[in-house]
């Protein structure tokens, strides 16, 4: 048995981070509470509080309810479940532990992923009476995906089935087979009763047939996932350190292996090379900095190094801007392929889009299922693209350089987590052909600037009518135009798309790309689409230069549009014959800051068209002379 405040206080004691996961009611909190209690790391006032809480909220009658040690949030006590990952600390004579206790509730998968991302090992609990459940498969899958290779399966509540050896061995065999298929090479199945303390800290008399380690013994011998001392070192630059003109250092964390003074490093992304002149810390300069240390490095010569650069000693790391990646979706709002998100790789945040998933992974069978999108808690594989190349390593080689998070730029939520499998192409191969006939040359010939005029509004608002009038006026002025209209595009280019939210996003993404190409061609492109989502319109705007996008909000109250109902669609939607119809059962997000707002309840379509022309003059697309497009530069 361990002593109070047991050893492992030695500065050189090892550290193991592990997570516990399992379904609701499997007894995770009880198990951790028991580990803390048995390690005698609870103070008397905590024990007093536990005893009081056990009487008030407990489920064990007069006994201590260890789960209450861990379920700290009042809301959990009301619901009797763990709703968020909690971090706990304990120590034995051999080691220090950080435990991430993660909830088993389906909708809180994201918290489990959080705990798993920093863990060295995992303890998965199940209820011996129920055997392997979907949650067990799901958690094992996530654990494997996040690169954890050491798993203990705690077969809990064995006391409730009379410590049946046969049941335990059946569950163990099933689990080992499943885990092996995921590449989890080290599985320990342990018969446990958290409530009775069986095989938690020490091996128990109650299971004489079990010859393996107790759970705590297993944890004491599991291996931390440290960097290898012989691996090449990489410094991830977080901050450029310039106290004055005489010092320019790069502050960041050493990954992989040990960085030495005198090491030759390459600054990536990029081709520059230099030498580590000094490794600076407040405690003096170091000859070498091992993996995991946070230091400041001074390089020889003047180099272009910024936050997000990677200084690679030894072989360079890879650089790319398109990957195949495993994605875990974390947000209630499903992933929308083609939508513009942000992603953070190391110390760099870049624009990010994912294609439609190549497949989704069935967590129970490992089957690859077709998927148009990913919903909260789903795992899939997709091709992803980012705005600028980043230095990376495949995730299975390097957790730090192979992982990324996906953020929604509109609400700033963390919506996904990703792991890089491999690059789709080397960025070096991706160079735009330098063309001599460029946009400027076309502008000079056309006598007007190119522009996307983007009409957005409800069905029946009058977008097409106004766009058509605008095109006629422009044509009369000698401008080069093209009209893209929702209906005719959906018959051809987008005939494979329906009206689900994901398809609507893809529909607009394609239109945006086509418009951007037409702008390259020097045209004034008139786009008339409902385009209900702000994010997609922002994407379209982002594909062209400032001043080349004119958003026209054709504002019409829903009642007016329904009354007009030129195509009879509202009537159909109300009869339930059309689903996902904007304004009826699908949202419309009006622009917050369009170049032009039209109110079609006032005035004529011709007057509205003139207003659009006025806006184009203000943008400098057309000259201010009313008879010719005019030379604009």
């Amino acid at each position, binding site marked *: 048995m361990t002593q109070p405040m047991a050893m492992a206080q030695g500065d050189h004691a090892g550290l193991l981070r592990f997570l516990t996961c399992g379904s609701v009611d499997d007894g995770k909190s009880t198990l951790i509470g028991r580990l803390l209690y048995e390690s005698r790391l609870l103070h008397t006032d905590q024990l007093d509080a536990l005893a009081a*809480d056990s009487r008030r909220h407990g489920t064990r009658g007069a006994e201590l309810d260890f789960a209450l040690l861990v379920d700290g949030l009042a809301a959990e006590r009301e619901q009797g479940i763990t709703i968020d990952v909690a971090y706990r600390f304990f120590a034995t004579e051999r080691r220090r532990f950080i435990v991430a206790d993660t909830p088993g509730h389906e909708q809180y998968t994201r918290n489990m992923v959080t705990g798993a991302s920093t863990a060295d090992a995992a303890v998965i609990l199940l209820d011996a009476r129920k055997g392997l459940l979907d949650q067990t498969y799901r958690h094992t899958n996530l654990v494997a995906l996040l690169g954890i290779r050491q798993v203990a399966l705690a077969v809990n509540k064995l006391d409730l089935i009379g410590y049946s050896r046969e049941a335990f061995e059946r569950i163990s065999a099933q689990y080992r087979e499943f885990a092996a298929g995921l590449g989890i090479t080290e599985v320990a199945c342990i018969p446990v009763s958290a409530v009775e303390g069986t095989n938690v800290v020490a091996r128990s008399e109650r299971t004489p047939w079990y010859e393996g380690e107790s759970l705590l013994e297993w944890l004491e011998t599991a291996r931390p996932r440290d960097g290898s001392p012989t691996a090449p070192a990489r410094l991830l630059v977080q901050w450029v350190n310039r*106290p004055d003109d005489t010092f320019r250092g790069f502050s960041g964390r050493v990954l992989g292996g040990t960085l030495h003074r005198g090491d030759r490093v390459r600054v990536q992304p990029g081709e520059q090379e230099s030498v580590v002149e000094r490794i600076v810390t407040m405690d003096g300069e170091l000859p070498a900095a091992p993996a995991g240390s946070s230091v400041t490095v001074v390089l020889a010569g003047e180099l272009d190094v910024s936050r997000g650069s990677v200084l690679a000693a030894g072989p360079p790391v890879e650089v790319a801007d398109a990957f195949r990646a495993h994605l875990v979706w974390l947000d209630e709002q499903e992933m929308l392929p083609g939508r513009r998100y942000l992603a953070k790789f190391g110390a760099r945040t870049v624009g990010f889009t994912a294609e439609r998933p190549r497949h989704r992974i069935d967590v129970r069978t490992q089957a690859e299922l077709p998927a148009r999108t990913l919903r909260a808690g789903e795992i899939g594989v997709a091709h992803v693209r980012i705005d600028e190349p980043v230095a990376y390593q495949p995730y299975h080689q390097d957790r730090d350089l192979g992982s990324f998070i996906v953020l929604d730029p509109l609400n700033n939520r963390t919506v996904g987590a990703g792991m890089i499998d491999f690059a789709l192409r080397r960025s070096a191969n991706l160079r735009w052909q330098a063309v001599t006939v460029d946009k400027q040359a076309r502008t000079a010939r056309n006598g007007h600037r190119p522009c996307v005029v983007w009409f957005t509004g409800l069905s029946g608002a009058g977008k097409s009518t106004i766009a058509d009038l605008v095109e006629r006026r422009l044509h009369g002025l000698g401008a080069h135009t093209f009209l893209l209209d929702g209906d005719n595009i959906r018959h051809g280019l987008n005939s494979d798309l329906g009206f689900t939210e994901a398809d609507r996003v893809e529909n607009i993404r394609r239109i945006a790309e086509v418009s951007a190409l037409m702008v390259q061609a020097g045209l004034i492109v008139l786009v008339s689409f409902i385009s209900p989502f702000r994010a997609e319109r922002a994407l379209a705007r982002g594909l062209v230069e400032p001043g080349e996008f004119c958003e026209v909000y054709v504002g019409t109250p829903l009642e007016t549009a329904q009354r007009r109902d030129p195509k009879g669609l509202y009537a159909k939607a109300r009869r339930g014959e059309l689903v996902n119809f904007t304004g009826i059962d699908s949202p419309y997000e009006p622009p917050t800051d369009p170049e032009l707002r039209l109110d079609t309840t006032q005035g004529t379509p011709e007057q509205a068209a003139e207003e659009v022309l006025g806006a184009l003059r203000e943008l400098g697309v057309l000259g201010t002379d009313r008879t010719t497009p005019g030379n604009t530069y």
Partner: protein
Amino acid sequence: MLSYLDRLEADSIDIFREAVAESERPVLLYSIGKDSSVLLHLARKAFYPSLPPFPLLHVDTTWKFREMIAFRDETARRLGLELIVHRNPEGLAKGINPFDHGSARHTDLWKTQGLRQAMEHNRFDLAFGGARRDEEASRAKERVFSFRTAQHRWDPKDQRPELWRLYNTRIGPGESIRVFPLSNWTELDVWRYIERERIPIVPLYFAAERPVVERDGVLIMVDDDRMPLAEGEVPQRRLVRFRTLGCYPLTGAVPSQARTVPEIVAEMRTATTSERQGRVIDRDQSGSMERKKQEGYF
């Protein structure tokens, strides 16, 4: 190989740098205690040879131990750092104190509201704090980068997932982030680090003869003449020290012989009570810390 403390240190430095690189107006909430002292030491290491690129903010209650205030001013002077002291004007106007108004109201007005005022007045968008996950049950659930709404609220049911070492620092207008570089440190780690790095701390942590009265089983030090004594209550000089520091009327002392950091570490190993036990505010009722956090308390 890095020792355990080296790893904790490197992780904390990493967090400091990440937060500063991605915020406009960071600030360090300096509460003068041992955790703040460690936090400040780590901040200096993170940016050396630059000075930490942010001011210190002390949200004062006018009821701190006198030795804390002296130590605070001396520390800012010694390290050449900007110190902002904020006292809630409403607290000053109404003379809010723990004796007449109770610990809950005292804490809410001076600390919770005071912090909100200071954050808004200085338009800080990121604040470093010394909270540790091992302190209290609701803190065990905290993220390292903890999002606060424009109303300063913390929603434990809707926290941002926090994976690997990739922190989401994006916020909208008026919103802010609290950052806790000591999240994974324990009380003992803090003491061992103070010992190893020889970090200066307020002398109240060391045992000395101090005038105390015993109330509801808690030893309260009579730090100045504002403390009302009950009929027949006479302060006794006893050899005591403090495991945690706050407002003197709300902070219990413990009998102790430990006059040096190694002696404190040795004492801790045999300790049977947790460090927040001397905090009168935590014991209002179970779950109170969680509620205070939701209201914007640190």
